[in-house]
């Protein structure tokens, strides 16, 4: 028995492949295998011998079977290892290319502004970009001969011959949306109106189209002090700083009274703008209390309602926040610019998650 065991275990250990192993299995445990034959001989033994020999034979069978399996698995592992050694790939090659899309800074900043004002209860209003002169001017207390009209550098639409209406204009500001929003939903109202506006101006710092966001809040007791707070909150949140300081300066817009230009405290050092510190003041927007004539034009009773309006440049906000130097490049669609200043598709600004990464 011991010889038998040694022979087979040695043979199994020395088997070089699965076929050799199978031969050994057949020779030992096959129907006519040596151990199977020995099992058959058990019948001829007396019960006592049979019991001892039977148990020993079964142990031997199990042992050889286990050795066969272990060897088989070892052979398979070795074969796999050998194969995998040949399966070498250069992991430093680039991954399969995938296009990276981008969101334009104007869209991104519009969403940032919207997120902040939404949190303060402002809805988003819209209006046409080809506007009639009543909404763009008259309703905003800019009568036809008002000098402010000339200062708007207005684009006019062509008029067909025989059409004697005053020409439509490309809206010169987002303020006409104030009129449309108030006329549509009355007071109280809180809206912002972002969008394209147009002025006949093209040089280093001007483009004939740019983007503004208008803000309007009308209620029974809204004051200019509330305006200042709202703008402070906006700037603090938008520029993502702990505190900001705003300075109101008296100014004039026909559609607000009193009117104020708003400056923000900042520093410019080494071409780097820092908001909320330093000793420079930078003008960022115009604002004021909505003129009673504007409220009346939009069908809101100025004896009952009052509130503020403001307007600021979205492109300019984007330039200030993200350090984009040239306004003209916004509209040139240079792929290098779009990729450099653009935002990822999933960088969606929220108040909860932060405006920028």
């Amino acid at each position: 028995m011991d010889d038998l065991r040694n022979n087979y275990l040695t043979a199994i250990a020395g088997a070089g492949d699965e076929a050799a192993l199978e031969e050994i299995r057949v020779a030992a445990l096959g129907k006519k295998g040596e151990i199977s034959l020995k099992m058959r001989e058990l019948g001829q033994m007396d019960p006592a011998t049979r019991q001892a020999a039977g148990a020993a034979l079964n142990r031997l069978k199990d042992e050889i079977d286990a050795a066969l399996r272990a060897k088989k698995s070892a052979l398979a592992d070795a074969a796999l290892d050998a194969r995998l050694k040949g399966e070498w790939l250069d992991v430093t090659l680039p991954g399969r290319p995938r296009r990276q899309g981008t969101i334009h800074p104007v869209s991104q900043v519009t969403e940032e502004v919207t997120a902040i004002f939404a949190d303060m209860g402002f809805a988003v209003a819209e209006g046409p970009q080809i506007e009639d002169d009543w909404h763009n001017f008259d309703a905003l207390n800019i009568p036809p001969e008002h000098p402010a009209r000339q200062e708007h550098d207005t684009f006019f639409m062509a008029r067909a011959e025989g059409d004697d209406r005053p020409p439509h204009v490309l809206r010169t500001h987002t303020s006409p949306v104030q009129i449309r929003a108030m006329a549509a939903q009355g007071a109280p109202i809180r809206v912002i109106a972002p969008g394209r506006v147009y002025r006949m101006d093209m040089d280093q710092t001007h483009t004939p189209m740019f983007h503004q966001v208008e803000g309007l809040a009308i209620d029974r007791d809204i004051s200019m002090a509330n305006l200042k707070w709202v703008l402070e909150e906006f700037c603090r949140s938008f520029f993502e700083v702990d505190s900001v300081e705003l300075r109101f300066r008296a100014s004039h817009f026909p559609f607000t009274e009193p009117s104020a230009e708003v400056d923000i405290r900042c520093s410019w050092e080494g071409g780097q703008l820092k908001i909320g510190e330093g000793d420079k003041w930078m003008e960022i927007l115009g604002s004021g209390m909505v003129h009673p004539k504007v409220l009346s034009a939009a069908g809101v009773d100025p004896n009952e309602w009052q509130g503020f309006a403001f307007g600021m440049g979205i492109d300019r906000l984007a330039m200030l926040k993200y350090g984009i130097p040239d306004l003209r490049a916004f509209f040139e669609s240079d792929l290098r610019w779009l990729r450099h200043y653009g935002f990822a598709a999933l960088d969606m600004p929220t108040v909860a998650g932060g405006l920028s990464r």
Partner: protein
Amino acid sequence: MKFTLSWLKDHLETDASVEAIAEALTDLGLEVEEIVNPAAKLATFTLAKVLHAEQHPDADRLRVCRVLTDEGEKQIVCGAPNAREGITVVLCKPGDYVPGIDVTLGVGKIRGVESHGMMASERELELSDEHNGIIELPSGDVGQKFVDWLAANRPGAVDPMIHIKITPNRPDALGVRGIARDLAARGLGTLKPLPVEPVAGAFDSPVGVVIDDALKARGCPLFAGRTIRGVRNGPSPAWLQARLKAIGLRPISALVDITNFFTFGLNRPLHVFDVAKVKGDLRIHPAKGGEELLALDGRTYTLREGMMVISDDQGPESLAGIMGGELSGCTEDTVDVFLESAYWDPITIAATGRALRINSDARYRFERGVDPEFTLPGLELATRMVLDICGGEASQVVMDGAVPDTARAYRLDPARVISLVGMDIPEATQRATLEALGFTLKGDMATPPSWRPDILGEADLIEEVARIASLTKLEGKPMRRARPGVPKPILTPMQVREKAARRTLAALGYNECVTYSFIDGPSAALFGGGSETTRLENPISSEMTHMRPDLLPGLLQAAARNQARGFMDLALFEVGPAFAGGEPGEQEIQAAGLLIGASAPRDPYGSRRPVDLYDAKADAEAVLAALGAPVKVQITRKAAGWWHPGRSGVIGLGPNALCTFGELHPRILRQMDVKGPAVAFTIHVARVPFPKAKTATRAALAISDLQAVERDFAFVVDSKVEALTLVNAAQGADKALIEEVRVFDQFAGDKAEAQMGAGKKSLAITVRLQPRDRTLTDEEIEAVSAKIVEKVAKATGGSLRG
């Protein structure tokens, strides 16, 4: 508007520094743009005395001087002929910057002799062009600052110039006196009185005036003037010239300089005619049209009918209130002058000025509004100044018309001021502010002064009070939320869509562009636009003449620019307005994408292939899905002319076209200088139907535990048979059982035709059968298969491929 500190001090008694004044001006709404302080560049120079001067040992024209300075005796080598013992000079020390020669001094050696600084000439300090010698001061002490000496002895030389921006509502601040009044109201000094003593007329003016009745009501309510005879019109006095130069005006002659002095000092434009060149009386009347006038700017203007003009018997002599005529203007030879002071209607002046494109200081002021009540006082003050400077004798005043009545009053509601501004300004302060600005208060009614045409209501009173109180002091106060609790969504469904389209496209790898809303006419015409209704009357360039009918031309132009820079693989998109017409509201939001070049850069795996129509279609479908478009849509081939006729389609719901996709027409690409092919899509964002009722609940999910069965079929069909027809036919074979039909292969082209016959192709579909209540038997599967083959055959004329 520019003025100098000393000019301001003519009207304002104040000790305030120029910095304090500038800060107050900006805060008051008179924004300071620039302060030019000539003292700044002279700040380091001090007075010194030459103790001894002797010939330089090695140079004939140089002298070696011993000079007493605030730092003791110094040796200075000087080349000026007047450098001599005893004179008081202006000393520039080593380290000082000398503006006139643009040099920072050091200790130098001149021909072997050390020199510790220099003694300056006027030109070297940019005080004048004088350079014949160094400055010799008649007074002053050693060590005294030169700027202090100038301030005491030549204040004009160190007079700071302040440049402020004037908003259109403040014509009164177009005169120095108006600015002084604002500062006085703020508490920065006291407004000095401006007494007006009429000059008695010694004779009747040989020139009379008459206003046409048509213009008296509107145009020229008042025209006054007088003749001053026997004047000498030489250069004006130095102080007046210095004033005008300081604010950038060129002194011309005493008479003209006096009119400018009144224009800028008191916002009272005047005009002077040379009486010798005026024939008969002056008549203010509307032009007939066609008359010509050579104006003072040297240009000849042709008048249009109705333009207001001043004529004498010879014809037009002056563009009333805008610019005088050259022929009747004053020269150095003028002896008798007619001095005009009139009040012109702002709107009439603005219209004429705009039509003739003349920008003059007079027009600028009259169209914003000068003080009508100051017309005659201004004339009297100017008369006196002419007499003082030019001599002569004044006639009686001649005039026509009358000062228009501008009296009006508005209620001052102190509580409303506080409520609106949000600052606690006591009533007494509010009233005092208005009075300081010239308002008259009677009870709670405030009458604005005649120089404030902009005050037209209660709100204007509030602005005045707030402005003088200083908005800089305003402190923010929290604004309550409109309603408590978690705010509701604030975006409209359309706004949500725009964002969804934008973010989806960026996620698909497109770069967002923002292109101009206007494009050139020819490009607009290629895309169904360029009509008269969308044309701009005054485009800024020939590339921006029409509102865009579609976003694609803008994207194609962007693509052409990028191709020119060497970027050939492009995925660009824009979400924005396109304009169908020129009326408000004739605009719609489009989402357009453009793919050009290859799908990927070259890589080791062969990923790169040219983009094709199916890329555009997949991306368009992804956007449509993000917008909530239904899955079941129709696809037609009715795309517009700028698409490839065989390789474009329209995704629609019945007649409602949601999207066009496909290859762009090669001719269009050629015309737009784009190297193609290019595929694209335009989605009409608002045309995707909005859900009728909004619910967050999804339909229940029905999953079967029974095994689904997939069967493949290959059909031979005519090559123009569309896959969707085949798919729809197969789907119709058993709507309950067939869960999905998908095309998985197409075999077309020469090889296919060789196998299956000319004009044929093969389309292979896989059909997924999902039993619901029990497992399908082979017979049932066979029955459905037969039905599918039959339906497809009927719909397409095709047969199973053998």
